[in-house]
């Protein structure tokens, strides 16, 4: 104990310096979106490498459950492959193959990634995964679980790692629609519980009820990606729309493997939207 106190006495100036420098850098990082993105991208690379080494050991013990997930995923991919094969076959009028052309999912490319670090107890949470620029990851790509549940989207990319803004971030906002009747809404997180989000601007004609599912409606992700289930819904203050309490489908605190989704036409859509604005 005496030696410990002596040791702390010897290095307290360095500890104080690290603390003050850390606070100053954090303050500077939050001063503008540019500094935030830049510093986040640099710290992602460093932090990712460190966390990667630490979590590597823990990851070894979760291999059985991962294998189960992977097997399920392989089965799903096999189905997709079958569909691709069918699409590349000659199209015959009236053939059932023609129906596949209506499915826009072929524009999407999937990149598996492993979660290196994540937070769920802050207002602005982030997730770091072990795929980066070198693997073809770009900003604004959507991120889902292997069970097709929403996670978030990529906000910053380093060479080998990427930072994801998950739904558990007060800055996060995404379009959704009720699976039962197709009515649109907007989903956001208010920062209270990591298990619940809020769906707003649901049309009064939608008649949302407890148990109804809400899925993503965004150019970043294919259709059928689940956000969560309505727990309760009530009219907003102006009585013009419904606001619903949404139980999230994904439990982010146990997130391990994710799929990063690239929409091959995203750039085109983004340019078109910018042109309209």
């Amino acid at each position, binding site marked *: 104990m005496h030696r410990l106190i002596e040791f702390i006495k010897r290095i*307290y*100036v*360095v500890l*104080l*310096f690290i603390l*003050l*420098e850390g*606070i*100053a*850098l*954090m*303050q*500077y*990082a*939050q*001063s*503008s979106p*540019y*500094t935030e993105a*830049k*510093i986040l991208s*640099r710290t992602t690379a460093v932090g990712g490498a460190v966390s990667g080494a630490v979590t590597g050991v823990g990851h070894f013990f979760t291999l059985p459950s991962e294998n189960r997930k992977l097997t399920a995923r392989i089965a799903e991919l096999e189905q997709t492959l079958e569909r691709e094969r069918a699409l590349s076959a000659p199209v015959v009028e009236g053939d059932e193959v023609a129906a596949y052309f209506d499915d826009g999912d072929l524009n999407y490319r999937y990149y598996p990634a492993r979660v290196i670090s994540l937070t769920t107890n802050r207002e602005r949470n982030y997730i770091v995964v072990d795929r980066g620029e070198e693997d073809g990851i770009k900003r604004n790509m959507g991120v889902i679980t292997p069970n097709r549940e929403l996670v978030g989207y990529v906000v910053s990319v380093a060479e080998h790692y990427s930072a994801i803004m998950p739904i558990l971030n007060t800055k996060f906002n995404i379009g959704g629609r009720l699976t039962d009747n197709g009515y649109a809404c907007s989903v956001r997180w208010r920062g209270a519980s990591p298990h619940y989000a809020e769906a707003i601007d649901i049309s009064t004609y939608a008649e949302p009820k407890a148990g109804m599912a809400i899925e993503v409606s965004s150019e970043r992700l294919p259709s059928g990606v689940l956000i969560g289930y309505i727990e309760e819904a009530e009219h907003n203050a102006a009585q013009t729309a419904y606001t619903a309490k949404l139980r999230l489908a994904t439990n982010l605190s146990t997130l391990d493997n994710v799929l990063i989704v690239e929409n091959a036409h995203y750039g085109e859509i983004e340019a078109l939207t910018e042109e309209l604005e």
Partner: protein
Amino acid sequence: MFKQFTYFWLAFAILVVQIFLLDNISIAMWLRPMIFPLVVLLLPMEWRMVWTLLSALAIGLTMDLALGGSGLYTSSLLPLAVLRPWIMYLTTGRTVEHSDQSALLSRMLTKQVMLYVAGAMLVHHTLFFMLETLSFASPMRLVATILCSTLLTMVVSAPIIQLYKSKIA
């Protein structure tokens, strides 16, 4: 003998000149004199590092508040408080001996103080401009900015160091 009261007024004058004069002179984007680190660098080397660190924090916060740096000035100034004994050793070969009766900066020649300040300014300016740009897209431009600004800072600092040597240290 280090004259603390006179040093306080010199420090005040340096900050006023930096905030109201040098920061408002727009010569070129790559030519920005910053003399405020002098206030930390010219503090007695025999001071305990924690006091130097807290002084650097106070100066950095003042600059951030006055010039809207949002932590940039503080984060680039704090390392100087910790690194200055090493910078002193690397530039002049001198080490701080706490048993000495007279202050190290007062025993040094003006030329040696200049060399020490130049080394420290180079470190500070490197940190400052790297943090400010946060990009290595134009490395040559970044290096040119650091070197030119350090040079101009030294030109402006030279009379202040001479004044310090003759009246304070």
